[in-house]
């Protein structure tokens, strides 16, 4: 078994892996710290993340590692106690509203109104993004087509299967063509076909230049999809780089899943 020291490069080295200069940089987070009131340890402890255009950045970690806190801070939902976040060149902590037009969020929950149809949901979210008229209707059609829901667009979301809900959830995040898309476990608990469709569409989006931050528990998904991954545990990034590079660096590990378990341990995290 490789030791943690073998696989977890020193912080500086990690940062080198994650930082690739400012050119083409979509997101840069420096020294993020978040301590929840009453929490024994920081939920996030001096995290640095840099993401470039067209990258799919995988955020991996066991339950309670700090993934959701990281995504919440980067997507302007939560303010860090310390540190800076720059998105598309704008300080996201100081000017969250200015950043929000560039980002899209696909939350882990099905963040849609279940008593509205998929089209009504997209119409509402589109208008909130400031879209309207024919342009919005066209964009709604494109998004529904992308996730294979055109035929069911006028059906209440409540009547959808789990897979259809996930796909509609993704469509709502893509509506305004965001430059940076946050995906928090977008394929959890769905059928193989829906999962396959979502992954295919994400690859298509990546090819079209959309940058993504992708949080998942499925290591094979991350290995297949992500250009860069960061493994986070105890609020700190304990490993980072391309999946292939990380596997290569860890002797005895043939997959990202094996590497993940060797880094975070096999004990349950409930």
């Amino acid at each position, binding site marked *: 078994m490789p030791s943690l020291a073998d696989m977890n490069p020193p912080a500086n080295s990690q940062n080198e892996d994650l930082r690739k200069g400012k050119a083409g940089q979509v997101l840069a987070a420096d020294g993020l710290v*978040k301590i*929840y*009131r009453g929490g024994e340890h920081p*939920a996030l402890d001096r995290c640095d993340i840099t993401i470039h255009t067209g990258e799919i950045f995988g955020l991996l970690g066991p339950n309670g590692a700090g993934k959701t*806190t990281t995504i*919440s801070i980067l*997507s*302007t*939902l*939560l*303010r860090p106690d310390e540190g800076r976040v720059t998105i598309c060149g704008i300080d996201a902590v100081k000017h969250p*509203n200015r950043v*929000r*037009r560039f*980002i*899209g*969020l696909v*939350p*882990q*929950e*099905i*963040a*849609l*109104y*279940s*008593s*509205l149809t998929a089209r*009504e949901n997209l*119409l*509402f*979210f589109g*208008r*909130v*993004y*400031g879209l*309207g008229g024919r342009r919005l209707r066209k964009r709604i059609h494109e998004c529904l087509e992308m996730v294979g829901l055109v035929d069911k667009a006028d059906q*209440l979301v409540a009547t959808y299967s789990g897979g259809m809900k996930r796909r509609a959830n993704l469509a*709502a*995040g893509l509506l305004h063509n965001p430059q940076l898309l*946050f995906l928090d476990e977008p394929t959890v608990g769905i059928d193989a076909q829906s999962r396959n469709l979502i992954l295919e569409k994400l690859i298509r989006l990546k090819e079209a230049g959309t940058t993504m931050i992708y949080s998942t528990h499925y290591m094979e998904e991350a290995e297949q999809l992500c250009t860069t991954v960061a493994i986070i545990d105890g609020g700190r990034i304990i490993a980072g780089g391309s999946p292939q590079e990380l596997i290569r660096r860890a002797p005895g590990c043939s997959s990202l899943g094996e590497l993940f378990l060797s880094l975070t341990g096999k004990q349950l995290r409930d």
Partner: protein
Amino acid sequence: MKKLGATIHKELLLLWRDKAGLLVLFVMPAVLVVVISLVQENILKIMGETGTRVLFVDLDGQTLGKNIEDKLREAGRLELIKKITAAEIDEQDAIEAINRGDFQFGIIIPEGFTDAIRRRTRQLAYKSLSMENAAFDKNTAIPDLIVYFDPAVRGTFRSAVMNALNSVILVTEVNEKLKVFSEILPQKIQKEIDATLGSFASEGINDTLPELKLDIDGKPLMQVKESSTSRKAFQKTPTSVQQNVPAWALFGIFFIVVPMAGALIKERHDGTLARLLTMPVSHLTLIAGKVAAYVLVCLAQFFLILLIGIFLLPLLGTPQLELGSESTALIIIVLSATLAATGYGILLGTFAKTYEQASMFGPISIVIAAAIGGIMVPIYAMPKMMQKISIFSPLQWGLDAFLDIFVRGGNLVTILPEVISLLLFFTATMIISWVFFFSRIRKGM
């Protein structure tokens, strides 16, 4: 503006699809207004505004029993029932009918009542004029006039019937006494003249003595006129409809907190709030859209209740709701009350962790606020302590303002204190919700 419009449209669409919410918002207050108005109309009848059905058994069968019956009928406050089936009822029938709960009261005029009263009156008259008469020198026992009542009848109704009966008895008694005095007093005067003047008294004096006709059967000299303290003269006395329609409409308006808080909690739990908070829209727009949508719904709800008061209730036998002429003041009160209700809905939706918490606490708190606010029982009928507490209920502020317009003939100036209170309540709930919401966001939702 487009974003605000989108939020309002979304909220209205969500409410439209929420059948249970619509039931709470429209059907419940409509049913409450109809039921309570009809029930209270009946209570007013029992309290004496119109006839309460009372069994009447006249075992005396002579003049006084008949007099009492006639006077009770004339007074119009009691409807006297002498037959349940074809035959006239006796005392035992009356007791059984009351025990069965078929009637609440029974008046029994005892046998020999007229004779006993008349003998006793004469005894009193002779005694007070210091006259002697062998036929009336012993005190005559008067049999009791009995009123049977159902033990379940409340004290107020009992005293209403007793008051009606007592006033009739008093008039009858006074009349009887005067009749006897009219008869005896000239005899006494004649006796005194004879005793003083002896043979000087000519027979002619007897003829010149005035004949006394003391009778109070005619109209009373003093009358009590009912008059309200309305600022404007109302053609009709305020009815139960004038009081119940605004009261229960207000209750319905405040019930908006249940679907509203539910919608907020659902948004928080299903992630739509998180999605909205990462979108380029201000929190103020989101919350203003929600408030505006629910205010529109409350206005529709209030309009429906008014229509019920104007058109439906009269068909069911109640008086028609009269809106008065202060429509601007009325709109201002409704808007202030709906804002206060939506503010409370947002407060509840922000503080409650689950829909179950909100759906339990919301209605209970509204019912308590309604009870102390005078929606169910008028504030003047409450104990002193509760009257002091009632000023803290926003429903009381709203109701007082409505009654100002509907019943007291008030205007924009007179409703101003209540309107300000409602708007301050709205502002306070919004500020508290805002502070708590952002403190929760800082803690990570």
